[in-house]
């Protein structure tokens, strides 16, 4: 620690006013405040809440909450690989294989994203914002394990420049940046991010007999009889019971790197709620919305997917991950308490609607969140107006 401090102090004079690297002061400042809590504090006057936590520490909490998903996802990549090849791998082999996919993803995401952030910060002469710390971790978690890295780089650049900097930087974006990156890939290069790309296979390997890379969503959408039977039969011969309710909840199934495990997402949700960083209302209401819509479709009936028990909607696809880490993004979500309930509930409803009724999009959580991001200010507007009217009625003057 002492060493880092000394190093930083040694170069500091170069970056201060009049120094030869004055232009790059904010790049230096970013590193300094990343490593050490800044010693400037809010002035005594005014109404600010004074607290040790700042934006960087806040973002770190979110990243900590994502670690369970990340670790589980790393193991799961290896596990699914060996399952598809009909081999058995040790725990260490699976982790190693997973790390081989996940680490480059994270490096590319942070490298490209932070690079662009630094360039914009220096050009616009403002401190480097912390927003990208979380986005940079979210992007790898919502990618298929073997997505080409150049695509991740292009998507990250697009999301940061168009999704964020065009609107004015951190805190000004309208839609979730990590989902912008994913949506970009989804429309720009669909062949690498849709269909059966969710298991890491590798070049020219021979899969086990009977293997199918279909995700639970694909199985449910293609079902002609009973979804439950199809789930039970899926994987017979090479991965018995891979889509049993228990397994789906634990997340031992193919999918994006970090989205598979509902359990790990709930662990993350607990961290977010306990530390007060994420909104519990949104998380709960997304699940509630999806469940309610699932129940409604059960009542209506009509095709096998609509008759699928509603609780399955909560454990397949990326609903849990989206609910916990994407929908709760404080910038793009609604700000009012009541608004959060409405916002989350509608995300859940639209997710199930897109899943069941739109054959072009097997998973709906990404599009549902992006859609509600756009509507969030409108929801807030109506909630505020309703509150005003209520208080006006109560007023005696």
């Amino acid at each position: 620690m002492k060493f880092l401090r000394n190093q930083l102090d040694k170069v500091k004079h170069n970056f201060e006013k009049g120094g030869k690297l004055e232009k790059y002061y904010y790049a230096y400042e970013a590193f300094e405040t990343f490593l050490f809590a800044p010693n400037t504090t809010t002035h005594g006057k005014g109404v600010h809440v004074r607290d040790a936590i700042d934006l960087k520490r806040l973002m770190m909490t979110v990243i900590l909450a994502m670690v369970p998903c990340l670790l589980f996802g790393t193991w799961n990549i290896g596990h699914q690989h060996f399952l598809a090849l009909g081999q058995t791998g040790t725990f260490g082999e699976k982790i190693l294989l997973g790390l081989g996919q996940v680490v480059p993803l994270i490096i590319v995401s942070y490298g490209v994203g932070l690079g662009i952030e630094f360039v914009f910060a220096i050009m616009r002469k403002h401190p480097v914002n912390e927003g990208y710390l979380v986005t940079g971790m979210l992007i790898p978690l919502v990618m298929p394990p073997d997505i080409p890295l150049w695509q991740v780089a292009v998507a990250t650049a697009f999301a940061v420049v168009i999704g964020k900097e065009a609107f004015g930087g951190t805190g000004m974006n309208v839609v979730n940046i990590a989902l912008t990156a994913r949506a970009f890939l989804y429309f720009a290069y669909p062949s690498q991010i849709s269909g059966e790309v969710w298991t890491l296979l590798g070049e020219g390997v021979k899969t086990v007999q009977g293997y199918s890379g279909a995700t639970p969503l694909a199985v449910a959408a293609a079902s002609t009889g009973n979804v439950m039977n199809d789930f039970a039969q899926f994987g017979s011969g090479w991965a018995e019971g891979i889509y049993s309710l228990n397994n789906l909840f634990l997340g031992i199934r193919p999918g994006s790197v970090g989205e598979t495990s509902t359990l790990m997402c709930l662990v993350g949700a607990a961290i977010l709620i306990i530390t007060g960083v994420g909104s519990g209302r949104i998380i709960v209401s997304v699940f509630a919305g999806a469940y309610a819509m699932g129940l409604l479709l059960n009542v209506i009936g009509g095709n096998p997917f609509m008759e699928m028990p509603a609780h399955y909607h909560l454990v397949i696809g990326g609903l849990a991950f989206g609910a916990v880490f994407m929908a709760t993004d404080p910038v793009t979500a609604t700000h009012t308490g009541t608004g959060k309930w409405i916002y989350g509930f509608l995300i859940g409803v639209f997710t199930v609607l897109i899943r069941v009724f739109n054959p072009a999009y097997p998973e709906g959580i990404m599009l549902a969140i992006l859609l509600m991001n756009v509507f969030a200010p409108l929801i807030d507007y109506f909630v505020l107006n309703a509150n005003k009217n209520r208080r006006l009625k109560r007023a005696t003057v």
Partner: protein
Amino acid sequence: MSTAVQEVVQEKKSEPLFSKKNKKLLSNPLDIDNPITVQVLGICSALAITSQVKPAIVMSLGLTFVTAFSNLFISMLRNTIPSRIRIIVQLAIVSVWVIMVDQLLKAYVYDMAKLMSVYVGLIITNCIVMGRLEAFAMGNKPWPSFLDGIGNGLGYGVILISMAFVRELFGGGTLFKGLPFEWQVFKSMGIAYQGNGLLLLPAGACILLGIIIWIQRSINGYRESH
């Protein structure tokens, strides 16, 4: 009295064909008064037919033609059109020119006419045509109006073709597809290029247009007025 009036008229008549003011009519719409990026007219066709360069070129030529001649004729009639029915008169004249463009395309480039059928017909509702008639031709003389039509058509074309260039290059990996000098850019360089599907969608075009406006505004120093 009468001599004074005549003097003024004479002065105006002596204005050269390409005076500074008239040149501005041609050059302003290319940049600081661009119909698409500044006046925000004609967006729909800019998103719809810019996935390749060829239709973009044909569309810009068609629109330039229609705008210029509609402007010219409306300007000649501007003192005789009753203002209460001016829109319908303008539409009648515009539609004559649109039909002529449509028939010309059908006669000489039939494939192109089939591809652009709807959009050629829709030139009549292209906001640029009506916008320039209302904003310029109704209050100016025929020659400046004609130049204004050409200028706005070219300004529209510049944006349209530059958008189509980027979209075709990065979306499909080709350039000038359908023209004699078609060029398979990446194939000829031996690069296996995977086309960007987003750019081929109208949504991608909308984002691209936003980027063009962003670049233009940061060069021209535009600031939003509150």
